[in-house]
């Protein structure tokens, strides 16, 4: 283990709470600089996996290296290497944005001048003296990202970053994540929003009942598991000769020989006005692979 190209190496991680096995032996790797998505419905084990990887709880079995640190034996070093943005907006509400960040500076032993840098990065510098109570959800989320970036971690964990945000705020957060990735930051995010994962992640792992049921790039997953279909727009030439236009759509499977023959026939007859290929969505893929709906 300990490949310098890998930021996370997890081997057969398990976590049991009482009789419930929240994480049931998962293994995966995250490459340096990658945006990796953990996708699954609520209760699938995504957040527990983050808690394991960030050293908040011990695994019942298995082991993992994060940024080269063992999650159990090198917990203190691990904390210096990671930033975590939690699902719940856990900020000190009565304090200003600056006070929140200066407190973190004290915990990590960082110069306070870094506060202005991260506030600038998330676009909150002008609002730094306002209390968090007066912030919108999107601003709070950005402040939590600023807090997680304060000590220049190598690895950023984001637990449901888009939850509860309006489309504009969610878009802003996604742009920030993409920018961080371009600057070399490794990001692991959990989400149950397929659109978010599709737009952001270079690779995704589908999680259901504590297991990883599929892991690949979103495109590869869609190609491998999505329905390969064509939507064909047809026109009836006989009807059109009488001065009327008659268009209708037909959906054909690219894997069905009968549909292939039908497509060839329509082309020869000149009935086809347009053809669109249709990949399956990640949501469809998840349903097919995991056998459960995402939400």
């Amino acid at each position, binding site marked *: 283990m300990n490949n310098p190209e890998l930021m996370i190496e997890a081997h057969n991680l398990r976590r049991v709470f009482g009789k419930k096995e929240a994480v049931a032996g998962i293994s995966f790797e995250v490459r340096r600089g990658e945006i990796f998505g953990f996708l699954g419905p609520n209760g699938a084990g995504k957040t527990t996996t983050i808690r394991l990887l960030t050293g908040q709880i011990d695994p019942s079995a298995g082991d993992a290296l994060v940024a080269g640190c063992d999650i159990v034996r090198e917990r203190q070093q691990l904390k210096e290497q990671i930033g*975590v943005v939690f699902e719940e907006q856990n900020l000190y509400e*009565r304090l200003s944005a600056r006070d929140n960040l200066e407190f973190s500076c*004290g915990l990590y032993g960082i110069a306070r001048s870094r506060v202005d840098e991260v506030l600038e990065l998330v676009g909150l510098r002008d609002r730094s003296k306002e209390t968090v109570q007066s912030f919108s959800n999107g601003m709070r989320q950005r402040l939590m990202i600023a807090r997680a970036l304060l000590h220049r971690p190598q690895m950023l964990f984001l637990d449901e970053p888009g939850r509860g945000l309006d489309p504009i705020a969610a878009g802003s957060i996604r742009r920030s994540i993409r920018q961080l990735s371009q600057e070399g930051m490794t990001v692991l995010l959990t989400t149950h929003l397929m659109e978010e994962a599709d737009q952001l992640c270079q690779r995704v792992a589908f999680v259901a009942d504590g297991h990883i049921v599929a892991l690949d790039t979103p495109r590869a997953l869609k190609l491998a598991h999505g329905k390969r279909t064509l939507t064909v727009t047809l026109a009836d030439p006989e009807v059109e000769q009488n001065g009327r236009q008659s268009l209708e759509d037909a959906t054909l499977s690219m894997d069905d020989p009968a549909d292939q023959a039908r497509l060839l026939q329509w082309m020869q007859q000149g009935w086809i006005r347009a053809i669109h290929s249709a990949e399956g969505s990640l949501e469809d893929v998840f349903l097919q692979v995991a056998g459960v709906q995402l939400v």
Partner: protein
Amino acid sequence: MMHTRRILAMACKDAIDIVKNKQTFIGLLTPFVMGIVFIFLQVLFSGRGITQVYIYDPDHSNISTIVSSVFDKPEIVYARSAVDVTAEFGSDRARTNTPYAMGLIVPAGFEESVRQGQHPQVTVYMDANRMSISQRQTVPGLLMDYANGVVHPVPPITVKQATINPPTESYTFDASTLNTVYPVVAMMFSLYSALFLVPTLLIEEKEKKTIRTLMVSPASFTDIVVGKSLVALGYQLLLTLALFGIVATEERVGNIALLVPFLLLGSGMYLTLGLLLGCIFKTTTAATGVGSGIGSVLILLPAVLAGPFGQLVLGNSALGQVLKVLPTYYIADALYIALLNQSQPGRVLLDAGVLCACIVALFALAVWALRRQATVMAEI
């Protein structure tokens, strides 16, 4: 392992948060209000203006000034003769309506007589309606100390002490009792702030889930707890000092060397008790509710009944003995000993021993509860 920088960061954050939390801030100002109430009660019950002291001291020695120092800004009236002073208080302590709180007869050539070992007699008349117990106990000590300063080390004088209006069996409320009891009640209540403050600081981290951020930061659980305790301790001591400044205006301060360590021991006990509450409970409402209940029993009863007022009301009754089961009794007892400047080494040792044992036991319980709580919190 503890880390000073992280502890200070935690303490600093909590201090700012307390100031910005109106509810907590107002709650923490309550002891100051108690101090103001005390001053109001002083004026209401004492019903007197300037304390007058009647002294015959033909040599105008320093002894008059020193003995009068038991009062706050006394007015010293010098008598023409010793007979005038005796007449004012009555040769058989018969006069009860004298305007003077204290009378003092210092014989002519007092200091010279002391040096020659003639054991001159100093006569002191004290009005118990105008002088508290501690004041009455302090005066002979001051006289002895003064005389010792003239000839050391054998006590060279005999003090003849007479008290007019001696305390009766049936208790009557007066300002002197207030002077003694109120500072202890106020100080005990200032210690009580730990029962409110420490759980609030700790539980809010759990309620708002900010504890999770701390758990992924380099701060250890010990850093977090010590940082919070430091804020509570700092506030407590500041408050106690400020409060003492208010309530001690009428009284002598007593034995500071004894008072300070017992205030620290008291703070330690309430801090560890608050820590335990903060670890056991998950909501501020539950912790402060239980804290208030505990506070009423553990603080008010010993604070009022451990001292001279308790002796008057309870004597050696069974209730007085039951009171000694409460660990807070030993804080109150020590504070009374210190304030009244009593020499009670046996009781002081007992008080210190009980308090130290309680602190260790409560801290061990709190650590056990913290470990358990930390595991549970991570799993939530």
